[in-house]
């Protein structure tokens, strides 16, 4: 079956978009131009020009290879054998009416509906997220909208004008130029401030599954508050996943679904040490962790080598401005940090915080803002 060259090329761009590579219209056009230059019959040149025009980060390259292979190398009449990437979705629990009623019963005798609501949310703020019913969780989700994270600030090398501070020689000169070179007013300047980067590392392994939803909602608040420019979110499990892009959507439920589709190792095991090393090698040491506030949300159940975890945490602390460890179990009665993972990591953390209820998340936001 023969096709037009344009059809083949643009069809390929569409297939690539369907596979999750953000191919825009202009990129597709660039690709057609490039192919016209190298010639479609040259399979290898076509491959490289597509890679240059359609991909924009290393994560795209694998997908590109798969789609390219499937599109250009398929044998007519035979089914394609390239296995699709497995993408488990988030399991959403069933919201039954019964539970909603059960939650509502104690408040029925309260005459003032507003106060009833207030006291209910107040109680909810201090409840353990893991022990909530589905209806309570739904209410809790709406409460997350009230969390307004502020980013910590740092001094920059750039100066900004100010009414006191040190003398701004350049601006003083520039202004004196207006008076024919006669120096008059002195201009002053001081060091500016910029938001410090915040990196959230969220454990989504099986033992944390009860808290993952709440923690991701919190992460979403962070990303949305800043427009995603100084906040980066990763999930930790058996592997590391960068989910900032998914969380950039304003609507929290959509953002969470998008994040769920990105994360391949939902509710799996944890290899904290190894995943942390991948984070530091690929992102952290290059500058993402450098001078930033890193928040690790995990219960510290480590399946792998705890010595490695301790080593990587030490590395992280050397790079980062502050390392915070959030453990959902910390706020519970009788908790002792005896799990091997936590014990190995704790010496390298600046703060050890609880993270099981809305009130503790408020606290976390405060700590981050002043880090």
């Amino acid at each position, binding site marked *: 079956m023969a096709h037009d060259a344009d059809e083949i090329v643009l069809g390929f761009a569409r297939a690539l978009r369907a596979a999750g590579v953000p191919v825009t219209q202009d990129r597709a056009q660039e690709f057609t131009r*490039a192919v016209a230059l190298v010639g479609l019959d040259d399979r290898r*040149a076509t491959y*490289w020009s597509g*890679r240059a025009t359609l991909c924009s980060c290393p994560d795209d390259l694998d997908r590109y290879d798969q789609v390219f292979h499937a599109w250009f190398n398929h044998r007519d009449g035979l089914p394609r054998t390239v296995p699709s990437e497995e993408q488990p979705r988030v399991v959403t629990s069933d919201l039954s009416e019964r539970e909603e009623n059960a939650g509502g019963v104690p408040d029925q005798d309260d005459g003032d509906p507003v106060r009833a609501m207030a006291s209910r949310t107040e109680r909810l703020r201090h409840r353990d997220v893991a022990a909530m019913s589905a209806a309570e969780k739904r209410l809790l989700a709406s409460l997350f909208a009230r969390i307004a994270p502020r980013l910590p600030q740092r001094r920059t090398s750039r100066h900004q004008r100010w009414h006191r501070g040190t003398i701004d020689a350049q601006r003083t000169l520039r202004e004196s130029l207006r008076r024919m070179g006669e120096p008059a007013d002195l201009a002053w300047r001081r060091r500016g401030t910029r938001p410090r980067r915040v990196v959230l590392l969220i454990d989504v392994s099986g033992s944390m599954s009860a808290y993952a939803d709440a923690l991701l909602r919190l992460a979403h608040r962070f990303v949305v508050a800043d427009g995603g420019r100084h906040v980066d979110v990763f999930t930790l499990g058996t592997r590391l996943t960068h989910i900032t892009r998914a969380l950039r959507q304003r609507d929290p439920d959509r953002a969470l679904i998008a994040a769920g589709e990105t994360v391949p190792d939902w509710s799996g095991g944890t290899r904290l040490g190894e995943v942390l090393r991948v984070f530091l*090698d690929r992102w952290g040491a290059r500058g993402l962790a450098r001078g930033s506030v890193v928040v690790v949300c995990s219960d510290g159940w480590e399946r792998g080598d705890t010595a490695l975890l301790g080593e990587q945490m030490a590395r992280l602390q050397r790079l980062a401005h502050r390392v915070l460890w959030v453990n959902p179990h910390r706020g519970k009665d009788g908790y002792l940090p005896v799990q091997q993972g936590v014990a190995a990591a704790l010496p390298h953390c600046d703060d050890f915080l609880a993270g099981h209820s809305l009130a503790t998340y408020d606290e976390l936001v405060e700590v981050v803002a002043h880090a």
Partner: protein
Amino acid sequence: MGNQQAPGDVGEVERFLGKTGYVSDESLATVVFLALRMQRPLLLEGEPGTGKTALAEAIAEAMDLPLIRLQCYEGIDATQALYDWDFPRQILHLRAIEAVAGTQAGGASGNASGGPTADPMLQDAEKSLYDERFLLARPVLQALRESPAVLLVDEVDRADDEFEAFLLEVLSTYQVTIPEIGTVKAATPPIVVLTSNRTRELHDALKRRCLYHWIDHPGLERELEILRSRAPEVSEELARQVVTVVQNLRGRDDLLKPPGVAETLDWARALESLGASELDLETASATLGALVKYREDGDRVRQALDRMMAG
């Protein structure tokens, strides 16, 4: 274009890069070819030390064009990238005009101020202040003016995202406007190479303007070829041993910072300058500082070398 014709096909790009001592492969040559023909900026990403900056230098050398380099850093802004006025000289100039005008006014004392001649004089003085000679052309403006040129925007990921927006503007039209002088437009667009170490994600809008290429660590044969072409003084035997060790180290996953090609070259040269024609444990561990830059890595590599030499 320039003193050298733009290459006609991919093979020619590979050859002319090879002539300067830069060993490319098919993928890189294709991307460079497309960048030259489509007149698009080239965005190179990859591990540090894989030859991103060297590629720009090689293109400039091969096409016999000047290389203009803009090193990005945090807080860089338009006055450092585009142009700035030379304020001290402007003031000096102004003082000079004043002095001259003063002596003239002393000679013809009748028409001191407000007369018909004062206005044009003032305008002239003002105009002469914003003359080309007080304009400090920074790399981007320089590249647009000297147009057939290679503009290297190095480590663009270090600059702030506001600066990216500015770059985007220049790269899409290849022109800038200076209010006091006018618009400067490149006769032929310069060849633009941007490099990034991926310390942060670049903005999509900027990426869209560019051709993207990820430079990986080279394989054994290609790295050997690079070593031969860049450091011909190193003996064949030593070169092969060095590259084998480095390739081996890159395969391990316990190094904090696996060595790049730049480190390979440094190490080979260091060994060579100690007079080694073959790799031996003593010289190797003495020169290890050229290869790995962390103490932990140094210990690990020393152990690995021990085993490799024994085996």
